[in-house]
Every structure is written in structure tokens, then in C-alpha cells.
């Protein structure tokens, strides 16, 4: 049990606990805020694994943008303050979902854990190396991503303001 293992275990426990509360809490806003805790735990474990760039981008994009978007969407859809009784699920569905999650986690763990062949030396990939590969080998996928983001932006705008479609498509133009 090295120092890296201990740091990773701490971050992983934070991530799993945050994810557990994000999935099980009845307060809808709390679910989004527990997601922040879970993602910070994931970012910490990525940092321990030696991927500083990915950890920082995860915090910037997920915590900074995605969770804020989710909070906005919750407020725009009139999320109740306090427990959400309108969307409460029955006990059978909760048990079924828990069993499904446990089965998925167990299946993945049973496949992945035998692949772990003892302790390995953590190989460090420098950020300059990542940048060189990103703009060398991966430059065309990277450029395609910008197209994807543009399409998502335009598509989201078109879908979100298309409420006058019922009156007729010419009303939106």
C-alpha cells in the first residue's frame, strides 16, 4: 500500500459516496450538488493516476458547465424545494434499480479485476507530450469535435426555441 494507493483510495471513496448520494437523494437540487462531489472525487483520482490535464478539464467542463446547466434545467422545470414527492418511485423499482446497478458493477469488476497484474510503476505522460499528440496524431478528430460542438449549439438552440412549431413552421423563421 503505497502513498499513491492511499491517495487514490481517498479520492475513490469520495467519488463513490458522492455518486451514491447523487443517485439516491430525494432532493433534486442536492442530486446535482452531490454530482459535483462525485466529479471532484473522480478528478482527484485522475490526478493521482497522473493525468493532470484531464483532471483539470473534467473540473472545468463538468463542474463548471455541465452541473450548472443541470441546475438551470432543474430550475426552469420548476424543481420543488425540499423532497421531490411527485417523482418518487416505489420500493420495487428502487430495489430493481439497485440490483441492476450491482449486477453491472459486479460484471465489470469480474471482467476487469483479473486484468490487474499486481503493482505497476505509474507511467507519466507529460502535458507537452499530450499537446504534441493532440495537434499531431489526433488533429482531425480534434477539428471534428469543434464541428460537433457547433452542431450541438445550433441544434440545442433550434430545439429549445421551437415552441411555436405547433402554430406552424413558418412562425419560427
Amino acid at each position: 500500500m503505497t502513498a499513491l494507493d492511499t491517495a487514490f483510495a481517498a479520492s475513490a471513496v469520495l467519488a463513490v459516496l458522492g455518486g451514491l448520494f447523487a443517485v439516491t437523494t430525494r432532493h433534486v437540487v442536492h442530486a446535482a450538488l452531490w454530482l459535483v462531489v462525485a466529479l471532484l472525487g473522480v478528478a482527484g483520482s485522475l490526478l493521482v493516476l497522473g493525468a493532470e490535464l484531464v483532471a483539470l478539464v473534467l473540473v472545468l467542463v463538468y463542474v463548471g458547465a455541465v452541473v450548472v446547466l443541470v441546475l438551470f434545467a432543474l430550475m426552469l422545470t420548476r424543481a420543488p424545494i425540499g423532497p421531490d414527492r411527485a417523482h418518487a418511485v416505489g420500493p420495487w423499482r428502487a430495489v430493481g434499480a439497485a440490483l441492476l446497478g450491482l449486477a453491472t458493477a459486479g460484471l465489470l469488476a469480474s471482467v476487469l479485476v483479473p486484468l490487474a497484474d499486481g503493482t505497476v510503476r505509474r507511467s507519466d505522460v507529460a502535458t507537452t507530450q499530450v499537446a504534441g499528440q493532440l495537434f499531431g496524431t489526433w488533429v482531425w478528430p480534434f477539428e471534428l469535435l469543434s464541428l460537433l460542438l457547433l452542431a450541438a449549439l445550433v441544434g440545442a438552440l433550434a430545439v429549445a426555441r421551437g415552441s411555436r412549431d405547433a402554430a406552424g413552421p413558418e412562425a419560427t423563421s
Partner: protein
Amino acid sequence: MIHLVGPYLLASALVGLGVAGVAVRRNAVLVLVGVELMLSGGLVLLVTTQAAGADRWAAGSVLPLFTITIAAAEVVVALAVVLAVFRRRGSIDLDEPSPAETTAEVGP
């Protein structure tokens, strides 16, 4: 030096939690929380391949960046759809029958 069992267990636990969250939620916005958890499990797995040394072209760092970007785009479009549905139906309950089904039942 790091043991690889930890990252593998974390990735499977995150994906399991995400699947449970997608299955248990009726609020359409909170389904996305489960999806984000699943994707972060995938991220941990990708970065683990880099830490283990089985990595070419820095793929263990570049592919997670792509995944994060695609996930952000996906969340934006999904929330736009959820808002459009909410404006049209006044509810984001996923268990509620759709208006087409209810009118089909009432109609001849």
C-alpha cells in the same frame, strides 16, 4: 508505484451507480446525472490504461478529453429536448404516458 485494482474497482462502481441512477429516476433531468456518472467511469478506465503504460499516441489523455467534450455536447442537446418537452407537456415525468397514447385510448 500503484496497484491497478483500485482504478478498476472505481470504474465499475461508478458505472454501476450510473446504471442504477438511470433506472431509478423519473425526473428526466436527473437521468442525466446517472449518464454523467457512467461516463466518468469510462474516463477512469481510459486514464488507467495510460497509467499502466499500455499507451500509444498519448491516447489515455487525449481520448478522455474527447469524451468530456462529447458528453458536454450531449448534455446540452438533452437538456434542450427536456425543456422543449416540458414546455409542451408541462411535466418531465418519464413514467407519464405520452399525449398520443392517452388520446388514442380516448378516441374511437
